[in-house]
């Protein structure tokens, strides 16, 4: 109940303008003559110390960035921002956010412990002024952070006289703050409060998609101890977790990782893992992006708890194959224990927790390269340019077509990487140090180096997000079938049809649509999805980031497949220009029409050990799959899917809204299968009154 009330409080924005720049500026203006890294540190200190914390009446664990609202003249704030922007900030492509901090270590030593480590490191580097200076700056940000905690304490003390506040809650907050200012956390609530203070500080620094990591691992010792000593109940732990998760903004993507194994392969699922699922489920908001690592020895009970949460329609957690992710991460020379302690950032991106610079990624629109191949390197829809791979009249076989396509993709990958590098190199690492963030990354303190300047244990990695596996596989399958096997059309005719967006070429489009499609367990099409990941990952394997890290590939999309599709000409799979590309690593919606097992047989063919960033397979199941004995069948389906080599699955329990939309737009929902009665059928093929029957039945359930 208090969670819901807290959400209401949280959603009430303070008056004024959200302006972190105002506070940064107030730090900068103290002394603009300082060297830039010191100047930046002043900005961070100001963010932490000059803000007045907001404590909600339903807060148990405090911390939010609403304190960054200021009531100042708009024009004044714009001018301030302009100065702050000139000093500059890192952004997503220059490794600023999407990071999983070293919380397992932080909760062990506390902030005071980190400061001690800094002192220790300074002794070891006493002859290196540069490092000592950097360590001093790290310490200043931590001291400012302690001041921020102290400000929360003061604010809680001040609120004691306000009758609207619950004194017991405030006393709880005061105790936690007081402890964290002076020592490492000793209880579950102190540890959780510390993590949330850190997260809040990162938000104040304007970082986005900061993960909470393996909470069920690093908080479990506290949970266990408190439960044993009787100061904590399971219910209280869920309440405290809800108190945190409910303060995650809907626009943020805060990954939380549960489940999985330890370095020896032992299952690490525990009671806290369950508490976390329950808390995320109870909050029922999009922000806490829960991921569950599923290993071969993950208990069915846990997986069923995940399924139950997914079945509410919330869709959390996403289920990740520990085996595939660990295989994928094992290619890069990371220590075994660091690999096993991986978590995710953002949506699904695999991350060596607290040991590499923040993530970055970009989109590689593979289906775009058909138009270049067919039109001598010129984009037929959007005036873009690639290389001229020659006149298509000279292509006499599918093999030659593939050679040309590979040549186009190779060029595209080279260009992609050159542009990324240029962007990344534009940042002078020395000027853009991150003293506060570095305190939450191994081994920055020990080495006296910045997180982006050689301090992190492992170098930066970059994700190349491969778009449109379904569109590409279906297109290649159609080209092979229609052009080279049936010889029903020539490549020139295909080019003309695509250029004309199939207008006047409806017959050819029908032939292309009738060719085998990815997702029906037909190797004719599926082999191209296998090739897609093999070939593109081999291309991106050739590059290294500025500091020697690897390029991971991903097959994920969010909704970018829709935006990417808007700028891509018609493709040989029958897709019209501007239509979305296939989503993530899924087959093209509506074209995998042979049931979930066939879809899973197809999508487990690619070798996801090559997709270190991760993949997304979106599937929809009707809500009835989450109940009764069918729930066990869904469990078996998911387990078989992972055994067969699936990397990830996220499931939608079909909602009433979707069914209604399916009735309005049947083409789009062609592959939505519903159990009818005595048999299953495609929803859109049922008569309208049947659809209404099912719609109404669903509502009752």
């Amino acid at each position, binding site marked *: 109940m208090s969670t819901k009330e807290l959400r209401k409080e949280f959603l009430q924005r303070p008056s004024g303008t959200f302006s972190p720049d105002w506070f940064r500026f107030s730090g900068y203006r103290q002394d603009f003559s300082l060297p830039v890294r010191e100047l930046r540190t002043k900005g961070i200190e100001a963010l932490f110390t000059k803000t007045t914390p907001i404590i909600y009446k339903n807060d148990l664990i405090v911390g939010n960035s609403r304190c960054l609202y200021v009531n100042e003249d708009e024009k004044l704030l714009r001018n301030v921002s302009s100065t702050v922007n000139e000093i500059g900030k890192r952004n997503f492509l220059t490794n600023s956010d999407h990071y999983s901090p070293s919380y397992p270590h932080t909760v062990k030593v506390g902030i005071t412990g980190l400061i001690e480590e800094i002192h220790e490191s300074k002794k070891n580097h006493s002859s290196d002024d540069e490092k000592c200076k950097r360590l001093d700056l790290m310490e200043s940000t931590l001291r400012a952070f302690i001041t921020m905690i102290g400000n929360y304490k003061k604010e809680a003390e001040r609120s004691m006289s306000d009758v609207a506040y619950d004194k017991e809650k405030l006393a709880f907050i005061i105790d936690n703050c007081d402890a964290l200012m002076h020592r490492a956390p000793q209880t579950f609530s102190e540890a959780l409060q510390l993590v949330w203070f850190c997260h809040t500080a990162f938000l104040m620094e304007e970082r986005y998609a900061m993960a909470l990591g393996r909470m069920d691992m690093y908080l479990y010792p506290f949970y266990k101890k408190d439960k044993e000593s009787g100061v904590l109940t399971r219910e209280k732990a869920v309440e405290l977790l809800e108190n945190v998760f409910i303060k995650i903004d809907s626009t943020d993507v805060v990954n939380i990782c549960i489940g999985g194994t330890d370095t020896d392969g032992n299952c690490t699922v525990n009671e806290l893992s369950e508490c976390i699922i329950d808390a995320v489920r109870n909050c029922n908001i999009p922000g806490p992006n829960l991921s569950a690592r599923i290993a071969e020895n993950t208990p069915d009970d846990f997986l069923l708890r995940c399924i139950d949460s997914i079945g509410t329609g919330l869709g959390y957690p996403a289920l990740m194959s520990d085996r595939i992710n660990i295989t994928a991460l094992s290619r890069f020379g990371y220590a075994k224990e660091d690999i096993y302690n991986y978590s995710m950032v953002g949506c699904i991106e695999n991350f060596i927790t607290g040991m590499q610079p923040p993530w970055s990624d970009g989109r590689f629109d593979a289906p775009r390269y058909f138009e270049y191949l067919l039109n001598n390197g010129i984009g037929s829809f959007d005036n873009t340019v690639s290389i001229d791979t020659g006149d298509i009249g000279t292509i006499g076989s599918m093999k030659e077509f593939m050679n040309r396509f590979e040549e186009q993709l190779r060029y595209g990958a080279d260009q992609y990487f050159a542009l990324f590098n240029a962007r990344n190199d534009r940042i002078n690492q020395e000027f853009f140090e991150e003293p506060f963030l570095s305190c939450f990354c191994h081994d920055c303190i020990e080495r006296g180096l910045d997180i982006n300047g050689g301090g992190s244990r492992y170098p930066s990695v970059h994700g190349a997000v491969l778009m449109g596996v379904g569109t590409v596989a279906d297109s290649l399958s159609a080209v092979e079938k229609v052009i080279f096997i049936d010889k029903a059309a020539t490549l020139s005719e295909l080019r003309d049809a695509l250029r004309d967006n199939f207008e006047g070429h409806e017959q050819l489009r029908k032939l292309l649509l009738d060719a085998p499609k990815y997702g029906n*367990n037909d190797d004719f099409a599926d082999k191209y999805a296998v090739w897609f990941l093999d070939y593109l990952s081999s291309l991106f394997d050739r590059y290294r980031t500025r500091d020697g890290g690897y390029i991971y590939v991903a097959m994920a999309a969010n909704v970018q497949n829709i935006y990417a599709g808007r700028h891509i000409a018609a493709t040989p799979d029958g897709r019209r220009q501007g239509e979305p590309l296939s989503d993530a690593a899924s087959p093209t919606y509506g074209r995998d029409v*042979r*049931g*979930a*097992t*066939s879809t*899973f*047989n197809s999508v487990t063919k690619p070798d996801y050990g090559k997709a270190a960033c991760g993949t997304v397979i979106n599937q929809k199941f009707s809500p*009835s*799959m989450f109940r009764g*004995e*069918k729930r*066990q*069948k869904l469990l*078996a*389906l998911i*387990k*078989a899917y992972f*055994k*067969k080599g699936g990397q990830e699955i996220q499931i939608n329990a079909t909602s009433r809204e979707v069914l209604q939309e399916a009735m309005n737009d*049947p*083409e789009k929902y*062609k592959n939505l*299968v519903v*159990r*009818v*009665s*005595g*048999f*299953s*059928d495609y929803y*859109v*093929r*049922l*008569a309208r*009154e*049947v659809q209404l*029957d*099912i719609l109404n*039945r669903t509502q*009752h359930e």
Partner: protein
Amino acid sequence: MLLNIANIQHFSVGDGPGIRTTVFFKGCNLRCPWCHNPETLSFEKTRLSYPHLDKTEWCGEMKTVEDVLSQVLEDKDFYDESGGGVTLSGGEVMLSADGASVLAKRLCEEGVSVYIDTAGCVPYSRFLKLNDFSDGYLFDFKTPFADKYTSIGGDLETVCSNIKSLIKDNKKIIIRIPLIPGFNTDAESVNMSCKILSELGADEVSLLPFHRTGSGKYQAMGKSYSYKDTKPLDSKITEEIKAEFSKYFNVKVEA
């Protein structure tokens, strides 16, 4: 050996234990007016057209046992994980018992569980062809009254004697009762069904509440559907019927 196949449906989750593939055979000897699968009634190829999808389909294809086998074995991993397998259904699969038994035998050799979904209005000699190769039967029981059975082309006496024989031969049997308003949902039908089935020694019963689910197919076949306007069974009535059956059997209501 060629099999007359209407459809092979992967990821069947309502036709027996675990995840199954259901093989629908063409041809049926009953003519239940509420039938959900009218396209499987005839042994001949049946045309279905969906003008709003600009799509025409033909139901019915002669397939070799090996063809069917290789298609259903694609999902072996899912059967193994879920305790599922293959369900042979129809139409009335027992009208194709010779071919079905060759398929069922091959499936047994591959270690795949076989269930048979039948209305059972055939001589027991046909069951004998499949008994050795099947793990269980989903056995339809439409009405406890002989005249009503006759009206849909069936025979109550045959049904009862087949159930009895299967139980005697130690076959796993799940009785499936479609709950059809106006046909078998009245108190008398329910009470009588319970009486007959319990006397026969049945212990497991699945109730399938009526829904107007076949009407899209009737439309696609250009036929009228006499149950088009029949309302689905009120869930309260379903619960009452379930409660009555539960006095005698282990009962499940299928969605």
